[in-house]
C-alpha cells in the first residue's frame, strides 16, 4: 500500500517493506543441502535413537555422537551468536533447518548445555568462564546437568537449602539435589546453592558451575521413572569442595542469574512445533492402518479427524508463535512470553502423545524396555509406532511439571494480565 499521512488523513506516495514470507531460490538450495546432510551424515545408531526417542531427552550416547557430527559441520548451535559458534543463518534458514530436522526423525540435541548454560555464559559469564567452558559445550566433549530442584524445593525453588559455605578460595557444599536430568551422564553441573539465610529467600542464592561431577563427597543416584527409564537423578553433596571461580554473577545474586537462564530454558532456542507435528504425522500414518470399531480405518473416523485437526491447529499456532519469536516480533518481547511458550508447548506434548496411545490401543500396553534400547535386536511386538507411543505418553507427564510447573507459569502469566 501507499503510505498514509495521519495529519492529512490521506495517502502519501511512499512504499515500504511488506509483511511477507518469501523463500528465495537460494533457500531451496540451502534446503537441499540440509536434507542431503541429514540423509547421509547420521550413523544407523543415531537414526535408531531418533526413532526411539520417547522424551525431550534423547538416548544419551547416540545423541552426543550426533551432537559431535553437527559440531564438525558447524551446525550444532544455530541460535548462538555467530562469534561464539552460531551459524549466522537468516530466520528463513532456521525454519528450513528445523523442518528438515523433523522430517529426518533425528534425535533432538540435549538442551542443558547448548540451550541453557551456554547462552547464559555468552550473556553474563566471565571471559575466563567462556574460554574454559564454551568450547566443550559446543563440541560435545562436555555435558552439563542442571542442579536446581531439591526434595523440599520444587515449584518454590527459591526455598532451596543445599548449602555452600565459603572457605578460602572454595565453597563447601552440603545437601541434596533431585530431578537432575541425566546427571549420571554429565561430567559438569551448574547449580543453585544457598549462601545466606538472611533477608528474603531469593537473596541468599548463588549460581555455581561445577567443573566435575566426581568430586569427593558427591554421589549421583539414578531414579527409574514411570516409563521404566533412569532419566532423572538424585545428587548428594557431603562436604564437596569446589573453587569459587565457578561462580556466575555475585555471591547471593544467583536468583537473578537463574532468572536470566530461565529465559533460555523456557523461551527455547529450539522450536518444539516441528517435533509435535511429526508426532501427528506418525499418529495419522498409524491411524491409516488401524481399523475403527465403527468400520473403516481410524483415520476415516469423524471424531479422530476432528481431534487431530484441532491438535494440529494448536500445534500450528505454537509454530506461528515460535516463528514470530525467532523473527524478533513484539509478541516475544512480552514479559510473559517464556511462560506462555513453556505452557503451550508442554501441554501439546501431552495431548499429542495421548492421541498416539489412543491410536495404539492395546498394542501400546506391552512393556518393551529391551526393544527400546538402541542397538537391541529384539523385534517390537507391534509396530515401531506402538513401541514408542506409550513411553512417550508416560514420560510427557513430566513436561507440565519441570522447568517450573504450569501452575507456576500461569501465576506468572496472570500477573502480566492483572498487574496484581
Amino acid at each position, binding site marked *: *500500500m*501507499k*503510505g*498514509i499521512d*495521519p495529519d492529512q*488523513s*490521506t*495517502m502519501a506516495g511512499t512504499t*515500504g*517493506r*511488506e*509483511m*511477507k*514470507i*518469501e523463500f528465495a531460490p537460494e533457500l531451496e538450495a540451502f534446503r537441499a543441502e540440509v536434507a542431503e546432510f541429514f540423509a547421509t551424515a547420521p550413523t544407523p545408531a543415531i537414526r535408531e535413537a531418533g526413532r526411539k526417542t520417547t522424551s525431550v531427552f534423547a538416548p544419551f550416547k547416540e545423541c552426543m555422537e550426533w551432537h559431535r557430527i553437527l559440531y564438525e559441520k558447524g551446525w550444532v548451535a544455530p541460535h548462538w551468536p555467530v562469534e561464539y559458534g552460531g551459524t549466522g543463518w*537468516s*530466520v*528463513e534458514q532456521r525454519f528450513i533447518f528445523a523442518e528438515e530436522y523433523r522430517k529426518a526423525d533425528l534425535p533432538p540435541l540435549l538442551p542443558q548445555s547448548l540451550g541453557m548454560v551456554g547462552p547464559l555464559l555468552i550473556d553474563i559469564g566471565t571471559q575466563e568462564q567462556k574460554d574454559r567452558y564454551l568450547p566443550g559445550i559446543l563440541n560435545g566433549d562436555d555435558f552439563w546437568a542442571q542442579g536446581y530442584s531439591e526434595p523440599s524445593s520444587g515449584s518454590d525453588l527459591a526455598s532451596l537449602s543445599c548449602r555452600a559455605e565459603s572457605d578460602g578460595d572454595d565453597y563447601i557444599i552440603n545437601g541434596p539435589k533431585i530431578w537432575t536430568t541425566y546427571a549420571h551422564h554429565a561430567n559438569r553441573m551448574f547449580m543453585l546453592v544457598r549462601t545466606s539465610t538472611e533477608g528474603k529467600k531469593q537473596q541468599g542464592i548463588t549460581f555455581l558451575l561445577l567443573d566435575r561431577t566426581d568430586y569427593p563427597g558427591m554421589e549421583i543416584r539414578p531414579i527409574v521413572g514411570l516409563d521404566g527409564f533412569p532419566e532423572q537423578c538424585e545428587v548428594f553433596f557431603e562436604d564437596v569442595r569446589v573453587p569459587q571461580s565457578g561462580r556466575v554473577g555475585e555471591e547471593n545474586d544467583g536468583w537473578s542469574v537463574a532468572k536470566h537462564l530461565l529465559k533460555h530454558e523456557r523461551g527455547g532456542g529450539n522450536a518444539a512445533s516441528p517435533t509435535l507435528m511429526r508426532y501427528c504425522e506418525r499418529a*495419522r500414518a498409524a491411524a491409516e492402518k488401524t481399523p475403527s470399531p465403527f468400520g473403516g480405518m481410524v483415520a476415516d473416523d*469423524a471424531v*479422530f*479427524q*476432528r*481431534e*487431530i*485437526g*484441532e491438535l*494440529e*491447529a*494448536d500445534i*500450528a*499456532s*505454537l*509454530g*506461528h*508463535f515460535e*516463528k*514470530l519469536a525467532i*523473527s*524478533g*516480533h*513484539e*509478541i516475544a518481547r*512480552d514479559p*510473559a512470553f517464556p511462560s*506462555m511458550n513453556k*505452557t*503451550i508447548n508442554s501441554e501439546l506434548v501431552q495431548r499429542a502423545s495421548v492421541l498416539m496411545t489412543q491410536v495404539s490401543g492395546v498394542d501400546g500396553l506391552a512393556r518393551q524396555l529391551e526393544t527400546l534400547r538402541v542397538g537391541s535386536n529384539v523385534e517390537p511386538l507391534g509396530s515401531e509406532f506402538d513401541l514408542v507411543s506409550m513411553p512417550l505418553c508416560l514420560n510427557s507427564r513430566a513436561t507440565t511439571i519441570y522447568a517450573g510447573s504450569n*501452575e507456576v*507459569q*500461569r*501465576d506468572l*502469566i*496472570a*500477573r*502480566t*494480565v*492483572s*498487574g*496484581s
Partner: protein
Amino acid sequence: MDFSFTDEQQMLRDGVGKFLEKSYDFDARQKLVNADAPWSADAWQQFAEFGLLALPFSEEQGGLGGSISDCVAFAELFGKHLVIEPYLGSVMLAGSALAQSGHAAAEEWVEKIVSGEAVVAFAFEEGHGTASPELLAMTAQGSGDSACLTGEKRLVHAGADADAIVVLARKGEGGPPAFYLVEAGADGIDARAYTTIDGRSAANITFNDVAATELEASEEAVEKIIADAIIVQSAEAVGAMGALVAMTGEYAHTRKQFGVPIATFQAVAHRLADMKIAYTKARATLIYTTALAESGAATPRDIAILKGQVGKLGRAVGEAAIQTHGGVGMTDELSVSHYHKRLLACDTTFGDHAYHFRKVGMG
C-alpha cells in the same frame, strides 16, 4: 523476514485508532446499534477519508493497491471498537468480487464503493454457516447479463440497506460458483431485515426469479476473496479478544471480594493466564497466516487453521471474560457481553471451528 507492521501500517493504525477512540467509544457504539439507521454514515465517510474503502482496490480502479496485511492492520481496531459498519461485506467481499470481474457495470459500483457513495451487500451464507463455496446450493439459471436467481440467502449484512447485492451461486446445475450482481429492490427480492446479536444490520433474502448480471470469476478468485474475508474477520475477532483480555485483567485487579482483589485467587489468576494464552495463540496465527496470504502461499489448510483457532479461542476468551466479571458480565450495559457476541458471530460465519478442525484433520 519481518512480521511487524510497516511504518505506514502503523501510521494507519494510529490514525484509525485515534478516530475510533474519540468517536466510537462503547457508549457511542451502543447509540448507533439502537438508532434507526443501520450504521453510522459519519463513520463510513470517515473510513472513506482514511482511504479504508479504497484500500484493497487497484490504483487503476481508483483504489490504493493495499494488501491483506494493510487490512489486518486496521481491522484489529474494528474488533476492539465493535464496529458495526459493513466493511467486510461491502469492501472486502462484494467490492473484491466486483473489482476482479472486469465487467463495466461492476466497475461503476467499485467507484461508488471507494467514494463511500454506495454500499453493496454480499450474499453468501445459506443457513448453516456456509464454510466453503463448495457447499453452495443456490443455482443461477441463464448467464451473462440475463442470468436469473432463485433461492434463499441468510445473514446478508446490510442486505436490506445496500444499493446492490453480489450473490454467490452456482453457474447452472452442478456448475462452479460464480458472482451475480443484483440491483437493490429488483423484482422478486424479499428481504427480511434484522439486527444481529453483535449489532449489525442484516437480512435473510429470498430470490424469486430475480434478474442478475453474471460476473466473471475463476474458482481461485472466489476462493481467494472468501479467504481474504476470513483473514480480515479474524483480525476483528483478535482485536476483540485483546480488548477482553485487557479489560478483564483490569477488572480482576480492582474488583474486591473477601477483602482482596479477585486476581489474587489462583483460580481466577489461571483463567486470566488462559485468556492471554488464547489471545496470543490466535494473534500469532493471524499474523503468520496474513504474511502467508500476502506472499500468495496460504493454503486452504492454513485458512482453516486460522478460522478454527480464532473461532475456538475467541469463544473461550469471551466465556472466561464473562465468568471473571460475574453478574455485571451478564449485562447489556457492559461491553464484555457485546465482545462475546461479536466473537460468537465470528466463529459461526464461514463455518465454525468444529467444521474447520475436521477439515484440517481430514488432511
